[in-house]
Structures are given as structure tokens and as C-alpha cells.
């Protein structure tokens, strides 16, 4: 899933499965075979099923580095807190995979976020994959199956939401994770800061989205959702530099000069 491009981004290692693999390993050293047995309960003669387990183990072991192999056994390579909850796991994964810019996952995510409303005319995963492959030579090998695998992790990591055969770009969750985990290291909750400072802070933490000019729809929509939920406040002050959001007719904020992030964002 998070291998260097080109990567088939197989569907089988879903976030739920990878987390389960990690949690099994966290119970104590375990061989790959025993782990497989514990996750299939006696169906280990089913090669396909074993392969599914193996792929999930590989994502945890080789791609995310949560597991390590020691003396022929798998064990946790990170503190147990990173798998204590789905949220902790998500934040851990996000902090890794969005900085690995040479993966198919990252490259496709970046392409997709840049499509903005055009995405709505790409009616299914196949069209999405073909369009991306046609327009992006680096991702020319991308196929529908890869995008089908990508969608689980993309929605899990908070890039957007699934709706039938489409992806709704809205990075509310991704932004909320960053604001909850890292914002307070630089700013203070409840304090109004300049939009430009916020943009500068965010730009290094959101490498999958280009926010150097008008912010993409996915980021803008996420920000608007956080605003509507009362977790942040967006304001446009006169004679201040404005951050241009993706323009949406009818929305009260198509730009902002100042932002206030409330501590409730950490809920």
C-alpha cells in the first residue's frame, strides 16, 4: 500500500486488518505462521486467505515499520500506544505515509487533491485511475484495483469520504489530526493567528496538498467543516493578507485572513 511507486496498492491490507495484525504481535513475540493461524482460526490451508494476512503483515512490517522481525518472530517496533486506538494508529500512519513522497499512495493522493471539482465528473474508480494514469506519466501503471485499495486508506487517513463509487474530498479529519497533535507545539489554542502564519505552518505538514496559492477543495472543505462544527473560526480582516480558499458559491468564507483554533479540536 505504501510501497515506492509503482505499487499495485492491493485492497486486502485494510487499516482494520493491519491494526489487528499489529495488535496480535503486540501480545508477544509470534511467528508469521502462528500469527496467520491466529487471524484465520484454522483456515490456514486457504492460500488466498494466507496471502491476505501476509500482505497485511507486510504493510505493518515493511511499509509502516510498526512491526519488526527478531529471531524469526514478529514483535512490535513502536510503543504500544500507537495501536491503542484507531485514532492513535491513524495519526501514526499519517505521520509516516505523507512524508514518503515517492510512494504511489502519496503521488495519487496528491494528484487527486489537485483535481478539486473535476473529481465529480470522474464517476467511478476506473475512470479516476485511467484519467490519472493518462495525465501522469509516473503513475501510468495505475489501475482500478490500485485505486480501490487506496480508497480505504485515504478515507481512513481523513483525505475524504466514500460515497458509492466516488470520493468526496474533505480533509476535515486529516486537518483535525494535525491541529490536535501538532498545532499546540507552535501556537496556542483559542488565540487568533494570521492566516499566512497558519498557512506556513500547515504547508510543511500537509505535503499532499498544494496550499501555496488558492487552497484546494479538499483542504478548504475540511476547514469549512471544522468551522461549521465550531472547532475553528475563520475571519477576514480588512487590509490583511488573505488566504484564498477554494471558492464555493454560498459559503460565507471564500477567504480568511485570521484563524482561531479552539482546544475542542482535540476531542
Amino acid at each position, binding site marked *: 500500500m505504501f510501497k515506492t511507486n509503482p505499487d499495485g496498492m492491493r485492497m486486502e491490507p485494510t487499516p*482494520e486488518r493491519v491494526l489487528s495484525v499489529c495488535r496480535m504481535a503486540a*501480545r508477544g513475540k509470534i511467528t508469521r505462521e502462528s500469527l496467520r493461524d491466529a487471524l484465520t482460526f484454522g483456515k490456514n490451508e486457504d492460500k488466498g486467505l494466507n496471502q491476505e494476512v501476509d500482505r497485511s503483515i507486510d504493510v505493518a512490517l515493511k511499509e509502516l515499520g510498526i512491526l519488526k522481525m527478531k529471531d524469526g518472530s514478529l514483535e512490535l517496533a513502536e510503543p504500544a500506544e500507537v495501536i491503542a486506538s484507531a485514532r492513535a494508529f491513524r495519526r501514526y500512519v499519517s505521520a509516516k505515509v505523507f512524508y514518503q513522497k515517492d510512494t504511489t499512495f502519496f503521488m495519487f493522493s496528491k494528484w487527486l487533491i489537485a483535481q478539486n471539482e473535476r473529481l465529480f465528473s470522474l464517476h467511478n474508480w476506473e475512470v479516476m485511475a485511467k484519467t490519472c494514469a493518462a495525465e501522469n506519466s509516473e503513475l501510468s501503471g495505475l489501475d482500478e484495483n490500485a485505486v480501490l485499495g487506496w480508497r480505504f486508506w485515504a478515507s481512513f487517513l481523513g483525505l475524504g469520504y466514500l460515497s458509492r463509487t466516488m470520493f468526496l474530498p474533505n480533509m476535515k479529519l486529516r486537518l483535525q489530526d494535525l491541529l490536535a497533535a501538532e498545532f499546540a507545539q507552535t501556537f496556542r489554542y483559542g488565540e487568533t493567528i494570521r492566516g499566512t502564519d497558519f498557512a506556513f505552518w500547515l504547508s510543511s505538514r500537509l505535503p499532499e496538498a498544494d496550499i501555496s496559492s488558492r487552497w484546494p477543495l479538499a483542504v478548504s472543505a475540511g476547514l469549512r467543516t471544522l468551522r461549521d462544527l465550531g472547532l475553528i473560526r475563520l475571519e477576514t480582516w480588512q487590509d490583511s493578507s488573505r488566504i484564498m480558499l477554494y471558492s464555493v458559491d454560498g459559503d460565507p468564507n471564500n477567504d480568511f485572513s485570521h484563524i482561531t483554533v479552539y482546544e475542542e479540536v482535540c476531542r
Partner: protein
Amino acid sequence: MSWEQYRSVMERYAIKTDDMATEDAYFIATHMPFSQLDVYLGGKTESAPKHMTEEEIFDNLVYNPRNAHRLIIVRGDNGTGKSHLIRYLKARLENSASTVYDPAKEQLIFLRRLNNSVRGVFSQLLEQQVIRDPEVEEKLRRFVRSSDSRDEASFKTEILFAYVAAVSNDLSGSVYKPVICRDIASYLSDSRVREHLLREDGAVARCYNIITAPSNQVLKDTKVFSPTDFLDERGKSSIIKAVKRQGDPQASDFAATLLEDDSEIDRLVNYLNRFTREVIQRCADISSESTKSVFEQLRRELKRQGRNLTLFIEDFTGFTGIDTELITVLSTEHGGDYSDLCRVTAIIGITNDYFDQFRDNFKDRVTHQISVTDRSYGTNEFLIQMAGRYLNAIYCDPAALRDWERNGAALEDLPISTFRPPCAWETVKIAGRDVTLYPFNSQALTALYEGLIVKSPRAFLKEVLRAQLKEYFDGKIYGDGWDFPLNPKHVQMHKGEHASAIDRLEGLSSKDRSRLKSVFALWADGTAAGVKEADGAITFGGLNKAFLDDIGLSQFNGIGAIVDQTTGESAAPQSVPAPDSDSVSEAVRPAEARKSVSRAEQDYIRFQKDIDAWYSSGAPLQYHADYRKMLQSFICGDNKQCGAVNWQDIGVPAYVAAERLSDISCFSIEGQDNAPDPEKVLVHMERSAESRDALQALIKLRYFKGWDFDGSAYYQQRLLTWLERNKAAIIEKVTAANDQQQLSVIKWCLALQYLRAMIFGRRADTGSPAEAVKSLFVPFRKDDQIRRETKEWNDLVQFVLSRNPEFDSALAMLQKSSAATMGAIQLSRDTSDRRFYRGDELIEAAEQLIACGWDIESELPADIPDKHLLYNPASLLKKLYPKIRSVMAAERKHADAAAARLTEWIGELNQENLIRTLASVQELFRTFNANGILGSSALRIRFEKPPVEMARDVMKWVTVLTCNAEDMPVQQLSAYSGNALNSLCDFLRDIQTIAQLAEQEEARAKKELAKISTFTGMEAISEAARACMEALYDQLEGMEVYDDAAD
């Protein structure tokens, strides 16, 4: 003029609130010429009509230089302007040159619509000195006077009994046989029926009104009886039933007839209405002949004077009771046998309903019909012109208008008001001069007219112009509490995103937000898009901001960026025009709405209106079932595709989400007409602007089959925001868990599986948590080979068997909810056992169960909801644990008894005693064998094992059964599950059988010995055998339980 004056002029003169006749100056100043009236020759309508303007009608029909006989009816629905046309024709005649109208040669009589009760008509006839017969005149005068002074209650009773008498005297048999008519009269006289008919707004009150309505009222209906007069307030036939039960025999018979068939009431209603004319004549004390004579005498006298008659009757309704007579006398053509009568030109206004009801009276008598249809007034141009004239009259100085009327009322001289709107505004031309439409514009006027339930000029005047202007003037007078504009049909803005954005504006009251939306929906282009015009003026949706300022909406400064028309710069890109199907309102775009639309489009438009009405006016949601399904699909996905909540990845098992949300009744929306069971609701949508947008998003998603539509980014974000706002609550409800309480569903299911296995005597490997899970992942079935010793255990088995579906559901829940499902949550219901499990959760649960000996009774929740997917396993466990406790007590008691009996045979239950006894049994069998004694071979085989081994088995059973686990029933269940009790009891039963067998054989041996006592050679052998048998018998006989065992 002040705002108070404008309002006063409107209500007192221009669009009067008291229904009194408008004075001539205002009547002429506001008169809108009818341009297309349908004119038929004769009283039939089969031939195609001619189309005439009102001027052509005047020239060709009213102006009557050749003295042709004319009985003209002006037909149309209520409020279409018949009276207005008749009044105009009358004024036109009166103001004509003497060559056209010479009062010396023409008697003009004008009977107004106002005051159109029988009494009112009589009053007008008296006032205009139409009645020449002193006797008739006195009679009518008496009636008019008496109806003023008479006691209402007694008059009403008189009316009712007039109907009763009319029915009673009906011998015609045309509708009912005379004998039935008497029954009806009796029925109408019944106290219950009478009371109901005499109620306020009842039939009698209606008739009373027709006869005596005050002079400031206008009668609209002359039908007296309706079905409600025979049904109770709830529309039920309780009164009829009561009469059937308790009325006098004749009334009861007729009540029974009414109950036979629903159509009987209609038949009665129509029958009674036939007598209204007769009843009115009776109550007014006028005969048919005297009514006729009124106009006959008039015509004769005018003839004698050398004059003719032109009669204008605005509304014929008031002639109810004497209408037939009047038509008869007016239809009599002068000349020939009637050369004593003058010529008559009668122009009579009647409603279409009235015409249809009495068509036969008219069809052979009427010379012309003028039909006022919506083509005569329903064009936009007509309405806008009409509004312009009324607005001008309202804004004009009344004195100037009256001067103008006195000076001939030439249209080109009509005073034009000096009213100045706050900004450039739309005008209409009257006689080439501009007249403002402020505060309306043509779009608003058209939209408001289209929103009328009854579309007529009168309704337009009262419900649109007067109602809106009243609010506008009140707003201007009082400066706050604005209600303008009214939006009775809740016409919605075309641009839903803008409507939604207005709903979210802070600093505006909800009423002002609603007004803003109404203004943009009705006055503007359906959007709130801001534009800065070249002259610097700001417009929103095409409306000048000055208008908004004028009506108390100055706080509105637009939504998003304002496009500068000169530079074209805009912070917001221009959106792609919405497809035609996005038309929100028929009211705004009637022409488009009338075009042929697909079913999907019709649904879409219906849904939009439903949702808007739900949010804007608090109306109940009509199509909530559709929306709830859409919501379900959005949240849960479908059989193949994922929904917007990634359940598995946030820690909710796919199976739990799929099962819990599979029932549509789990989804509710505030204001849905059938209130859901709150206990069942997992996803609830409250009435809010955000929910409105979310629902709009869902119906757009369905209609456009995807997200590729104008405004999708907006709606998507609103829908997702709604979801995020409610997600935590939804998850909490779906999982029935929160920070304080987590349900151990997997643990409960594992425990159930284990207990079922033990009760059925099946093996479960609990050597390790993983092995335990693996061995419990199978459906356990009862083994018919296993026989339990106690009734209690057998009852427990039956209990489990009777609850097998619940146990199986728990197993399904265990297997499916612990699986990591890839993709759509519905896939978790797949019956395949090829699954990728969340092994860590299963193993952890098994570990805990093993640690506590599978007894988690104390951990079960105190309160368990009934029939709850997640609680069902706990509920079953809660029933099971007490049963296990009592079964184990019974088993233990039984085991102790069996052990005690064995002790009596064997002595203390230990290895040594057992071996000795078993060795003796084997010796016995050998003896039998040596002597050719046949015994049970099965029994013998069971005792062939070496005594040591057998003794070890028995001791094992005894140990299991007597273990000290009385306070640990589940542990005891596990121990007893292998059926050691049955094995021990079988052993006991075998020992007893053997003893019995030995006794029998001894008796037989003795008998045989007696027979062969002479055979000495056998003595030694038989003595040895006897000694052996005796020893064994002594041993058996020494036991107290011998007799019992022998039984």
C-alpha cells in the same frame, strides 16, 4: 402623502376591506379593460364563441338602438370580474351621449352584488321604485322590515319547518315515494337531527343567510344542504345511527335507508335543496305569481310611458327563490301577444356553478352569454397593468382623482402619483405615461399570482396587492416588526446554496432571513448573487440594494464576493447554470413547470418543495421514507459500495454496523409524519438549516446520479458537516457503547458457545485461548446418544434446544463481528467461513473467560434491553446461568446418592474394594460359563476389562462427581459434561443386575441338585459351586439395598 395615508387610501377607496362598492373615481381609475371575452349566442355553449373586447360588447349588445329583446348573462367563476364588467357597462351606458342613452326613453335599473340576499334584492327593488303594485310593495316592505326585527332563532325554526312541510307535502314521487317523504319529514323532525341542522353554520343557518344576509355581505353560495348536515363533527354517521336506534318508527326507517348506502345521503341532500326556492318564498311570504308580477307590471308601465328597460344585475345569487320567476318574466319578448310589455335589455351576472345548476332555466331563454375566462384576465400583461393602476390610485391624492372623475375621467388625463421609489424601479405605461410598480416588480406580481389557490382578479387584488401592501405600509409606518413580503406558498430561492447561506447569516433575525429569501425567490432571479453595477449601485439577485434597505433589510451585504460589472472581477467563479430540472418552484417559472417532465424530475421537484416547506414553515415531512433510505445508503453504502462512514476502520465491526442499521426505522427525521419508536432510532436528523442542506444534497445526489452538478461542492460540505456533527452520537447508538460502558459482545458470544457445548456434552478444547476460540467456532448440536441421569439436565438441554436460533445468532455474531471485512459493510453478512479475524480481540476475550472459568454472570449488565442485537447474548446468558446452577445442584445430589449405593455394595469406594468386587464378578462369569449358564453377554463383555483398569475408571467418575465445586456451577458443568454421572450409575446398575442374576442361578442350582441327589460323582462339584454361590449371595443379601436393586 404619508405612509398612513397610502394605507388609508388603499383600504378605504382602492381595494376596500369592507366589501362595500368602490366609489366611481377609484372604480374608473383602476378599471382594467377586458380584452378577450367569449360571447355565445343563445343559452347553449356548443358553438364556438366570438371573442370581443368590453367595448365591442357595449357597442353590439348593451347599446340597443333597434330595440331587440336581450337577456344576456355574464358567466364566470367567483372573483373573475363579472360584477366589475357589469358595473363598467352600466357606467359606460350612463356616461354615453344622449343619442346612445336617453333617460327619458330608457329606464336603467342597477342591482348591486353587494346586499344580494333576498332581503337585499327586495330592498334595492324598493329603493329604485321598481315595484308598482302597492300590495306587493307593502308585502316586500313588510318582509324587509320584519327580517330586521325578527328573532333569529324563531325565523330559523320556521325555515326548518318549511322544509319539513315541503317534504311532507311532496306527493310527486319524482325522487322518493310519498310514503318515504313522510319518513323523511319525520327524520328531519327528530330532535337530534333538528338540533344538528339548526347548529351554527348548518343548513338552516345557510338558508337564513340567503334570505336575510346583512347589506354589507356578499353571498357566495346558495346551496343550503350538504352531506355534513347529516354527519357528525368527525364525519361519522353517529346521528343517523342514534335515530335508527331511538327515533320514532318512521324516522328510524329512513335512518336505516341512509345507512344502507353512502350515496343515500347525497340523494337526500340534492332532494332537500330542490325545496329552497319554495321555502324562501314561504318564509318571505311571497308567491311565485306576485314575484312575476313585479317585473311584468314594471314592463307594462314603462311601455305605457313609451320607455324601455335596461336592467343590470351584478349577481343573480340574491334572487334565489324568485330566480325562475324573474327569468321567465325577463325572457318574455315584447311584441305580438306581449305588445303591452316594453323591450328589455337585461345583463345579469351569474357564477358558472349557478349556471350549471339551473342550466335548464336559461338555455332557451337567454339571448347571449358572455363568459369571463382566465384568458380575459390571466395574462401577465393584464395583471401587471392592473397592479400599476391600483398602485397609482393608492399613491394618488384622492382629491385629484375625484376631480378627474368629475371632469369626465378621460384616461389620458388620469392623475399620475408623485410617489418616488428609493431607486430606479420598474414601471408600466398607462395612456403612454409611466406608473411605478413599487414595491412590486413584474416578476413578483406574476409569481404571487401563480401562487394563488384561486386565480382570479379579485383574489389577486385582495391576497396579493392588498395583503402585501398592508405589510409594506405597516413596515414603513412602524419601522420594525417587518412582515413584508409575505410568501404564503413558500416559494424558494432557485439557488439553494444562497438560501442556505442566508440561513447561516449572523446578525439577522430568523424572520428577516426568511424575508430575505422570499424577496430573492419572488422579486429577484432566485439567487443572492451580488453585483456592483457600472453606476456603483449594488444589486443582489438583480435587485437594487436600496430596495432591501427600504424594507428593513439593510443589514444584508451579500454572500461571498460581489462581482464588479465593469471589471468583471469576482472573488467567486460564476457557477454553471443549473439544469432545467433544478427548477425549484412552479410559482417562479410556471411555463417551465408545465412542460413535460420525467418521473425522476417530478420526484426531485416534489422532494425539494417538501424539504423547503419542512424547514421554512415547520411542515411535516411527506417523503421522509425516501430521505431516510437515502440517508441510510449514504451512511452505510450498499451491497457493493462503501458508505461515508468507514465503520471497520474506526473500530466498529462491519457486521454490527450492517445489522444494526439495516432497518430503515432506525433512521428518523424530525417532523416525519409517523413518529418512530425512540428506542429504535440510531440516526436522527433534526430540523435545521444544516439538515435541510444535507437532505438537499441527498436528493441531488439521487437525481443527478452522482456529484456532478452545480453547487455540489457546497452541498457535499454541508452533508459531510452534518455527518461529522452527528457521527459520534450515531456510533454510540450503533455500538450501544460510550466512554463509561463498552459491551463485551464477543466475550458473551464465546461464553454462550462454551456453555452450549458443555450442556450438549460436546468437547471444547480450552487448553489455550487460541484453541478455545477455534473449537468454539462451530455450531454445536445435541448428541442423541448421550443420556443424562437427571430431569434437570434434560430440561436444560431442552431449554437450549428451544433457544437454538438465539445460540446460532450468537455464533453468527461471534464469527461475523470479529471478522475484518474489506469494503462494504454488507459484505460482513456473507455466510462464507473464509474470514480474516481480528484475532487479538477473540484471544483476549478467550483469555479472560478461561481465567474466570467461563462464569461471567457477575459481569453481565444489570439492565438489558429487550430484543437488542448486541445485548441478546447477554440476555441469554442471564437466563442460562441460574439454570446451570440449579441443574448442577440436582446432578450433585444424584451423584452423591449413586456413590452412596455403590458403597453399600463395595464398601468404601476405593481402588482395592473395587478390584476385589470386580474380580469376584469375573469369577462368577467364569463359573457360569463353566456350567453352561447363559447370562447377558453384553454385561459380561462390560466386565471383561482387567479389574484394575475398571476400578480406575470408576474412581475417576467418582472423583469428577464429588469434586468440591458446588459454588462454581460452570466449573461443575464442565466436569459433569462428560457424563460421568451416567457412567457411574450404569456401573451401579450393572452390579445390581449381576447380583440378581446370581440369586436366580443359585435357586435353579439348588433345584437341579435335588433332582440328581443319587448321582454321587457330582456331589463334590456341586458342593464347590454351591459354596461359591452362597458366599456371593451372602454378600449380596447382607446389603440393605438388595431388595431395591432387585426391583
